[in-house]
């Protein structure tokens, strides 16, 4: 499809004065696309020129259309000397290539100069005419839609989810070319900006091609990153999930996820999960997981993946190809592949060891596109109800590589092979957890000089293939059912693995909601909390922070040192997370993101997650302190004091987060279904905790609590640091997931912000402990600062708190945070009662229905009543199937990765969860929210939605890269002034582009990179920022609109 690109330059305003003599400017504009350039007339002596140019037409192939940005340069005409550049605007025309996105770009764009920042604005009009071309061998992929949103976009319906797509392109970094020695900083910055823009375009086009080959039409959860490797090049890489999406008509738009619903019924049948309380939590099983960390590469590549998506184009075929039998088979055959703990990982392996596997991988790479899809990974973090059956836990892999060992740096092969290795490892970890897929998958790097840490993580899960099939076939039914309340999930935590052969030591109990399936005592995941999950109380942000000093070194020595440190860091972070989780009396983590950043003389580790109390999981035991030296009175006294403080904190936290699961009595437990009761009795009789059934979970002082041993000063420090986390001030909540569990009635107040802090370590000989303290304070102070600044929004919640740490120079620690503060209505009860009526009316779920009604009358009487379904069990049998056993044996080795300090015992007390009608109450909120959206205002949010509004159109992806440099740092207010201006400029350019596309909001916004280099002595600084998001049009949710049931997906 070649096309015709047309651009028109209308006018400029607020131009800078370029001619000192007249205090005016003689401005003209160059419009460049590819190699063609047009110029406007010079508009003499005006700071607000009106060019009103003709239409400049570029006839180009679509390949170029996808790769190239339209480049608009504003210049000052100078009769005698060279014309001075005022600044540029790069316009990504990709959104115009898709019929469903924007049709015209028209608006005021800030004119940006890499040295001076924004200098005035220019009004540009751009259109594209595409011609049809049925060439089979085309290189372009126009029309494939891209979404940063890591869920099915709101006004679409997923017909098929094809699976993982990835691509990587490499180029020489202009900063490191010889020519950089002689060109101006401006020229070099612009070359870099342009190159990255081109590479992003190319990357997107290539991924689009892969999607088309798979038969898809969209990529969701598109995650693009760039690695500045320095001498060895500049890498732009991206991953995403290929899908076939159907646009919903505007009428049905709010019901985006409707079609997913039918699956809920089958799913619940399958696992016999009883509905708990009447919330619209749907019944899916979820597997629990404990993190499995792997830091070394397994180099073997497995047999063709079980999970491959079929390249189906017809929707009548089973959409979701991974099938159970297949997976089982492969898991056994894969056994040998996975998880043999390697010694000498990392650096050593990075080059030498690779030779063999590399070939294999290269061969594979050149194979067909089918081969490419051998990874059953999904970058999605939220799912349609029913999609997720079980969750196994977090899987992650890291690898240390040396960049100067890349054989031919200009080619992507080496990096491809590196990532391939990591993905293989992730896949095998997933298998080890009895799961056939990895969801919430992401990849990242940290580079310091020639050392590069590649990381990948995700959540092992079992997805529901049936679900997709039915959803596809039974659209009619779906829509019909959509109106009904989905049956409550009995929790989503049932283990996917065999309890006799657990991959790691875990305390299993029967699910606290259905009493039928086993659940683990804690659950860690990288995904968002499923909307249907039953949660008690509110959640909160939990962070583990860690600094580790390392010796400065070069090459392999350095890489080895780093890779030796990694497992310890992971372990420490995990321990911290676990302790903090217990301290808050919670039992699950969502949105877990662990970042390890490498500097010359230290490693920084930051793990962030949102802790919640899942009603299905057992209540966490307390933390008990044990001294090593009994008999020492003073020590014992000390321990007692600490113990008391811990107990107090736990009690306080329970109150703060409203975690008060009422005790579940035996009678209540007694379910209408005798069979299930029997089972649960049985369980209790041999369960360790049986005698404590009726106890309140206030017993954290008990012996069987989580034990922390104080055996040295480090341990004391650790415990102290546990207690130093300041609680969030009243009126605030914080989480790093999309929405806060336990808050449903968002109002329309939204404030997205970015904050950056850099701390210079003054003391040269710091200890690990000292560093930890500094790092912790840095993060804590940042949070406090947010609470203070946003105090006018109370009550409000900081959502999607995304921390990024870096060590830009030897003694600097940089923390970058992007998040959104959203207001909510404190008075929730009303909403909840208001919610109830719509909850009635499922025809086939009558049994479950009574619970919501009951809750309505008296929430405290709610309990879990296992619903027995005659139908049912196929999936169950899958999960318990023995053919996994062989794998499990292997997996026992994994224990090594998950040892914890102290022993863990759960104090189990039965409880029922409080009513939490998540989706439903959120839908009601639309009635009362009055989110005003004015035309000129562009809202930005890292979430996939804006509260109180409905997205009616996705206009295309925003992916922008900017460089800013200054040689007058002091004059611009120092490095803070410089960065403050730059970030404000970036925001304004994003808003301008969105507005020009006709949008009024950016969702799923993220700042991928904020790389700051400063040299105060030379009065210089340079900063690179990469941001992305989805431009959308959203409208206020209106009162008459049908209740959108699933706002959060």
């Amino acid at each position, binding site marked *: 499809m070649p096309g015709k690109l047309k651009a028109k330059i209308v006018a400029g305003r607020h131009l800078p004065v370029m001619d000192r003599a007249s205090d005016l400017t003689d401005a003209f504009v160059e419009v460049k696309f590819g190699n063609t350039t047009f110029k406007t007339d010079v508009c003499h002596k005006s700071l607000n020129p009106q060019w009103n140019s003709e239409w400049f037409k570029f006839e180009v192939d679509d390949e170029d259309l996808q790769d190239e940005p339209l480049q608009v340069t504003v210049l000052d005409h100078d009769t005698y000397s060279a014309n001075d550049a005022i600044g540029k605007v790069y316009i990504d025309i990709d959104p115009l290539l898709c019929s469903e996105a924007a049709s015209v770009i028209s608006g005021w764009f800030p004119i940006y100069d890499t040295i001076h920042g*924004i200098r005035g604005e220019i009004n540009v009009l751009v259109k594209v005419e595409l011609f049809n071309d049925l060439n089979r061998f085309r290189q372009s992929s126009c029309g494939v839609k891209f979404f940063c949103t890591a869920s099915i976009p709101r006004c679409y319906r997923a017909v098929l989810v094809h699976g993982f797509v990835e691509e990587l392109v490499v180029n020489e970094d202009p900063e490191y070319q010889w020519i950089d020695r002689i060109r101006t900083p401006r020229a070099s910055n612009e070359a870099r900006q342009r190159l990255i823009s081109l590479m992003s375009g190319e990357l997107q086009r290539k991924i689009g091609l892969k999607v088309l080959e798979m038969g898809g039409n969209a990529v969701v959860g598109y995650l693009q990153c760039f690695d500045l490797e320095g001498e060895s090049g500049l890498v732009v890489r991206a991953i995403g999930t290929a899908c076939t999406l159907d646009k919903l008509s505007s009428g049905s738009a709010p019901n985006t996820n409707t079609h997913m619903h039918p699956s809920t019924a089958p799913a619940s049948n399958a696992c016999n999960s009883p509905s708990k309380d009447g919330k619209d939590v749907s019944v899916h099983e979820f597997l629990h997981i404990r993190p499995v960390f792997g830091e070394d590469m397994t180099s073997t590549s497995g047999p063709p993946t079980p999970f491959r998506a079929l390249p189906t184009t017809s929707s009548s075929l089973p959409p979701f190809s991974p099938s159970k039998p297949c997976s089982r088979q492969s898991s056994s055959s894969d056994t040998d592949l996975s998880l043999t703990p390697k010694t000498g990982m990392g650096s050593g392996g990075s080059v030498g060891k690779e030779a063999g596997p590399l070939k294999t991988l290269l061969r594979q790479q050149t194979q067909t596109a089918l081969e490419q899809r051998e990874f059953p990974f999904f970058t999605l973090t939220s799912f349609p109800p029913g999609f997720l059956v079980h969750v196994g836990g977090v899987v992650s892999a890291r690898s240390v590589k040396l960049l100067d060992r890349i054989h031919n740096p200009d080619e992507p092969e080496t990096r491809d092979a590196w990532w391939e290795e990591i993905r293989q490892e992730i896949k095998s970890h997933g298998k080890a957890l009895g799961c056939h897929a990895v969801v919430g998958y992401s990849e990242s790097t940290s580079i310091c000089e020639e050392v590069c840490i590649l990381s990948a993580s995700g959540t092992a899960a079992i997805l529901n293939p049936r679900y997709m099939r039915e959803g596809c076939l039974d659209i009619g039914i779906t829509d019909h059912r959509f109106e009904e309340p989905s049956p409550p999930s009995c929790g989503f935590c049932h283990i996917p693995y065999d309890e006799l052969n657990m991959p790691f030591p875990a305390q299993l109990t029967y699910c606290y909601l259905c009493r039928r399936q086993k659940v683990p005592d804690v659950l860690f995941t990288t995904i968002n909390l499923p909307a249907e999950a039953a949660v008690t109380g509110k959640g909160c942000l939990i962070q583990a922070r860690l600094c580790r000093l390392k010796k400065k070194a070069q090459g392999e020595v350095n890489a080895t040192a780093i890779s030796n440190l990694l497992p310890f860091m992971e372990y420490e972070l995990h321990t911290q997370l676990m302790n903090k989780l217990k301290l808050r009396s919670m039992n699950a983590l969502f949105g877990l993101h662990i970042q390890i950043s490498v500097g010359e003389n230290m490693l920084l580790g930051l793990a962030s997650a949102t802790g919640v109390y899942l009603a299905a999981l057992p209540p966490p035991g307390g933390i008990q302190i044990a001294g090593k030296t009994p008999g020492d009175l003073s020590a014992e006294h000390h321990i007692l004091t600490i113990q008391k403080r811990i107990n107090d904190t736990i009690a306080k936290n329970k109150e703060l987060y409203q975690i008060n699961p009422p005790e579940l009595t035996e009678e209540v437990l007694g379910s209408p279904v005798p069979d299930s009761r029997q089972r649960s009795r049985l369980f209790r009789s041999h369960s360790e905790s049986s005698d404590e059934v009726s106890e309140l979970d206030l017993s954290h002082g008990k012996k069987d609590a989580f034990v922390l041993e104080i055996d040295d000063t480090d341990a004391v420090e650790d415990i102290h640091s546990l207690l130093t986390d300041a609680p969030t001030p009243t009126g605030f909540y914080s989480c790093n997931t999309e929405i806060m569990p336990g808050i449903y009635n968002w109002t329309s107040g939204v404030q997205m912000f970015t904050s950056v802090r850099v701390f210079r370590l003054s003391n040269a000989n710091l200890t690990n402990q000292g560093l930890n303290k500094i790092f912790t304070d840095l993060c804590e102070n940042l949070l406090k*600062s947010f*609470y203070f600044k946003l105090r006018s929004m109370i009550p409000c919640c900081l959502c999607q708190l995304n921390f990024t740490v870096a060590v830009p120079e030897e003694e600097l620690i940089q923390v970058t945070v992007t998040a959104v503060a959203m207001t909510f209505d404190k008075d929730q009860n009303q909403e909840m009662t208001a919610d109830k009526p719509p909850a009635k009316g499922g025809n086939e779920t009558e049994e479950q229905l009574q619970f919501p009604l009951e809750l309505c009358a008296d929430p405290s009487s709610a309990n879990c009543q296992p619903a027995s379904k005659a139908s049912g069990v196929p999936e169950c049998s899958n999960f318990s199937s023995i053919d996994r056993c062989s794998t499990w044996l292997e997996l026992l080795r994994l224990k090594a990765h998950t040892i914890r300090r102290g022993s863990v015992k759960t104090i189990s007390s039965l409880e029922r969860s409080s009513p939490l009608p998540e989706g439903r109450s959120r839908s009601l909120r639309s009635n009362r929210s009055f989110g005003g959206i004015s035309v000129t205002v562009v809202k930005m949010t890292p979430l996939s939605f804006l509260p109180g509004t409905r997205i009616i159109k996705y206009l295309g992806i925003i992916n922008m890269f900017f460089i800013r440099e200054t040689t007058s740092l002091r004059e611009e207010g120092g*490095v803070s002034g410089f960065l*403050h201006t730059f970030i*404000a400029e970036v925001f304004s350019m994003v808003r301008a582009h969105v507005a020009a596309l006709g949008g009024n909001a950016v969702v799923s916004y993220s700042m991928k990179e904020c790389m700051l280099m400063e040299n105060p002595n030379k009065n210089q600084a340079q900063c690179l920022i990469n941001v992305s998001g989805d431009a959308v049009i959203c409208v206020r949710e209106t009162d008459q609109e049908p209740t959108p049931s699933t706002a959060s997906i």
Partner: protein
Amino acid sequence: MTMELDVFVGNTTIMDEEVYQLWLDGYTVNDAVRVRMDGGVMEECEASADVLLSDTMDQYRTFQMCERLLHSPSKLGNQLLFQIPPHRQAMLIERYYTFDDGFVREVLGKKLSKGTKKDLDDIGAKTGVTLKSCRRQFDNFKRVFKVVEELKGPLVENIHHHFLLSDKLARDYAAIVFFANNRFETGKRKLQYLTFQDFAFCAGQLISNWTVGAVDNMVEDMDVDLDKEFLQDLKELKVLINDKDLLDQHKSLVCTALRGKTNNLNEMETNFKNLSRGLVNIAAKLTNAKDVRDLFIDLVEKFIEPCRSDRWTSADVRLYLTHYNNSVHLLDTFKHQVVWNRYMDVVKSSINILHVRLDESEGLSCFMEKKKSQRWGSCSSCRSPHSLAPGQTGGGLRDLFWAPTQPGRQQPVGRTHRSGRRRSIRKKDSLIAARGGLPHL
């Protein structure tokens, strides 16, 4: 924990009004932090000094970045760098252009030149306004002056349009520009008891009656320069004192009208010729630039002081002037009624306000001394009505912008004179009444 770098940028620019005021008042970051700590914001939000410092720095940086835009407020509305809701923009502008009455009183009528700027530190010390704030205010006056100077059309409206200020503030700026342009003397000891608002009121009168704009509304500088022709015509009024018959006739008409309405009839009668001569002479001399500058001193010396020595009350003065003015219309031989009206409208209301103010300070023997060090607080005269204005009108630049066309507002120009002027006088009266109750000295 001192940071090498510490920034916080919101998609919607976050601004704290309290910090903004501290910034405008010229506080340094550290002083501002101290003030905020004393204000108790810390206890309120469980913040620490570090947090407060970081927040203050952020805000100060934001304000500095915004300052460039505030210099031409219309840019603030269509710039893209900061996303600021309209009502906030209005607040930013209004506050930025708000001035201290004490400060403006010192520079009122002075040339807005570099020379005056050099004296700002003295003025600052005298008025208790920080030098930084003085500079901002002075630069604001200068900027408005420069922009308005070259524009056609009504002064207040121009200021309104170009600086997006509230009606009240635009009016004040018009007064400042008007005074600066005509260099009225306001600094003399005898005038010290007058506040800026008193002069602003007089300026409003002068603008709507004596300028070119009062007769022609599309001339350059129409509201800034006095109408030369009119000043020339004023010479004709001399007949009122030079023609003996006319003078006697006038006197007897006034006395007849006053009979029974005042206790001071005798003094009025004896002083009539003296006072009348004073007023007419002032009128006749106005062709002289020097005498224009001394207008207010002359009014005080030639009229107010004689009245005071006879212990006239403000009511007496008002009564006397009303009849003094009206009686002229009954003089058949006097042909310059129009000019007379145009002259007397201003003089009457100005003298009224000047006298009322003096009256208020009655009984305070040392009022002159005290006046010097006192300035009107922000409470009564200026600041609070300004800052309230946007909120009251429901916010939004549009409201402010279009306000002048709304009925019921005082018109800056002389076309709708009567009703408009009366309204404003009445308003003034109530204000005065309110002030009378304040223990302001």
